[in-house]
């Protein structure tokens, strides 16, 4: 477990995330967001969950980022006039971060080293999905269709 790699990736990811949060232009924010997500996927890889990483990349960068970009296209008119961030939010975010880290560092039970685990093969995930979690899988399927239809209806309204 190369913790060095993890740290580097984490730093990259956080930088991209921070950029996404603060950069003025919306498009750049979206791209940096995508980059941040790639970083997260990489972290997943490091943590041994390749499949989830790939799914993350697949879902977020493949679909969500494109969706966001399309939305930006559709609402281009006022994207430019985004004023600077208001400091209240920033303060609050920092406070929350401080609180969380304090909580994490406080609880000793969490300071453990990664145990050796069997590599998580896609087969095992497949089995788990198909046996123990088959019902949630169906529900998520249903949810996704419903969400997509909903989104379509919302957006399609203009066609009439």
């Amino acid at each position, binding site marked *: 477990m190369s913790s060095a790699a993890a740290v580097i990736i984490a730093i990259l990811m956080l930088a991209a995330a921070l950029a996404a949060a603060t950069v003025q232009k919306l498009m750049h924010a979206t791209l940096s967001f995508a980059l941040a997500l790639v970083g997260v996927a990489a972290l997943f890889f490091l943590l041994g969950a390749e499949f989830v990483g790939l799914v993350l990349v697949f879902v977020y960068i493949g679909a969500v980022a494109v969706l966001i970009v399309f939305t930006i296209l559709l609402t281009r008119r006022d994207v430019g006039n985004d004023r600077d961030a208001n400091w209240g939010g920033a303060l609050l975010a920092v406070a929350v971060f401080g*609180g969380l880290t304090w909580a994490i560092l406080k609880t000793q039970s969490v300071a453990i080293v990664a145990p050796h685990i069997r590599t998580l093969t896609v087969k095992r995930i497949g089995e788990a999905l198909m046996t123990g979690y088959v019902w949630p899988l169906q529900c998520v399927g249903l949810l996704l269709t419903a969400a997509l239809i909903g989104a379509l209806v919302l957006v399609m309204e203009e066609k009439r």
Partner: protein
Amino acid sequence: MSRWIIGHLWLICAVPLAAALAILSLPNSRHKSAATLAVAGQIAALVMSFLAFLPTLQTPGFRVVQNFTWFAFGDNALQLGWLLDPLAAVMLTMITLVGLCIFIFSTGYMAGDKNFVRFFAYLSFFSGAMLGVVISNSLLLLFICWELVGLASYLLIGFWIERPSAAAAAKKAFITTRIGDMGFFVGLLWLYGRSGTLLFYNGGNGCLEGAGLAMVGASATSIALLIFCGAVGKSGQFPLHVWLPDAMEGPTPVSALIHAATMVAAGVFLVARVYPIFSLGAIEGVTSSLTVVVWIGVTTALMAALIAIAQADIKRILAYSTVSQLGLMMVSLGVGGVAAGMMHLLAHGFFKALLFLGAGSVIHGCRGEQDIRRMGGLRRLTPITFSTYAIGMMALSGVPLFFSGGWTKEEILHVTGKWPVSRLPYYLLMIGVVLTALYMTRQIIYVFFGDRRTGSQNAHESPRVMTMPLIVLASCAVLFSIVLTPAWPWLHDYLTDQSAQFEFARLIQPTLFLSLVLVGGGFALGIWMYRKAGIQDRARPAETDPLEFTQPGLFRFLENKMWIDELYVRTVIAFSWTSARFSDWMDRSFWDRLARGLGGIGQLFGIFTAGVDERGINAGIDETTIGTRGLGRLISGAHSGQIQTYLGVIAIGVLALLLFYAWLA
């Protein structure tokens, strides 16, 4: 046939009532058919009562009773019934016969009147009610018919509605009789309360029979006196007689039928009917109630006779004479001579009807003139009326031997003489007889003798239809005495359930001579006092009365009916007037103020609660609502619609949670 009649006694009173209804339905113009209907009804009633009369002759002590239940309430039922006994039979025949004569007379007398039809309807209605009183076997049924009779008398007295005096007289008659009826009704209720039934004869336990009477027991005298009040009211005895003279406002046949023969006789008949109650617990025929009856009878007789002397109106004199004769009958009943009283009642019915009809034909002749001082010299102008009237006068004043009145009067004098309680009534009655003779001669002289005065200038004899009834009644007055003489006292024995034997020797009785003396004296006194009455005398103003001339004080006292009316006005009426005003005042001032006061209190209370409500509760509620709205606005401020603020709040929440844990740990 007679068997059938006994079975259907109610038909006798039903036929005249039916006739009355039929006549009422006729339009006012049909005089002829109305008259025929009424007379036919009366004839039918006469025939039926005669048929009913026959069987009562065979068996002494004859009594037939038909009871039926009027209505049932709860477990006990109210029963009424029809009764036929000698008393009822005799009364039936007398009423129907006299009624028939009067009906025929009034067809002539009322010919000109535009309400002819209505008159005859009322007449037949009256006769039906009167017959009902006579044959009823229950005190309640008797009372019902009694009230109908009162109504009929009211309608008939006030027949000429347009004359205010007639209307007032009708009201007066009705109210005074009602006062008497109140007493009668209370007595009836009391009797019902005590004896449990109002049927007279009900196979042994009627209220007049052994069982019922026993139950009545102690309260017999008070019940009797209360019932006697009814009789006093209806027969015009002393305290309640004021209405009878004023009742003369009605047409003369009415006065004849009602105020001479039948209705006023009802009171006497009532006392005779419920005689057992009066005489319950009598010690040799004397009870306190009977003594009361005697004394009331005597006072009425004497007082009426005195007033009659000073009266100027021909009908008013007859009215007072009726009152005095009724007083006489009451005395005879009081002293125990029920049969004597009833016989006098029957005789009186005939000759008093005759006198009234005679007066009617005189008035008819003089074209409505009623004041005797303006009449005179009618002896030659109206010979038939004069002769019949003279017969009637003689019968009334009790001339012995030939006239029924004389025999019955002697009988009554004989019976009062034997009254153990006191002899005073005997002597007072003798004075009464003399006075009767006096005022009758005065009237005869004024009306028929002397020279003609203004009223009777061109008097003419009444038509045959009027004179025929006069003749019939006159003959009855005379022939009736056949059954009354002591030689063959058939009526007396019939009424007292004995069989009569003829015995000529008893004809002459000592009282015969006594009455001869009394009547003769009366005539002599009258002729002497009024010998110049009929003649125009310069010395005296035309209309002054010799008695007035000689004894102005006494005359005026008598003329004004002893100021009894004024006395009543000043006492009873004054009392009611003042009490009315007092209650009005009370109502207006005291109760009104009290109500308004209570209202005020209520209002006060209302104001108070309104105040509390207004300032206390409303204010409180308003404050709270304003408060809540303010709070609501405050909180809604938080909902600024800014999504970011919501997120911020959540973040703060997380922080707070963390801090809380930190604080806990």
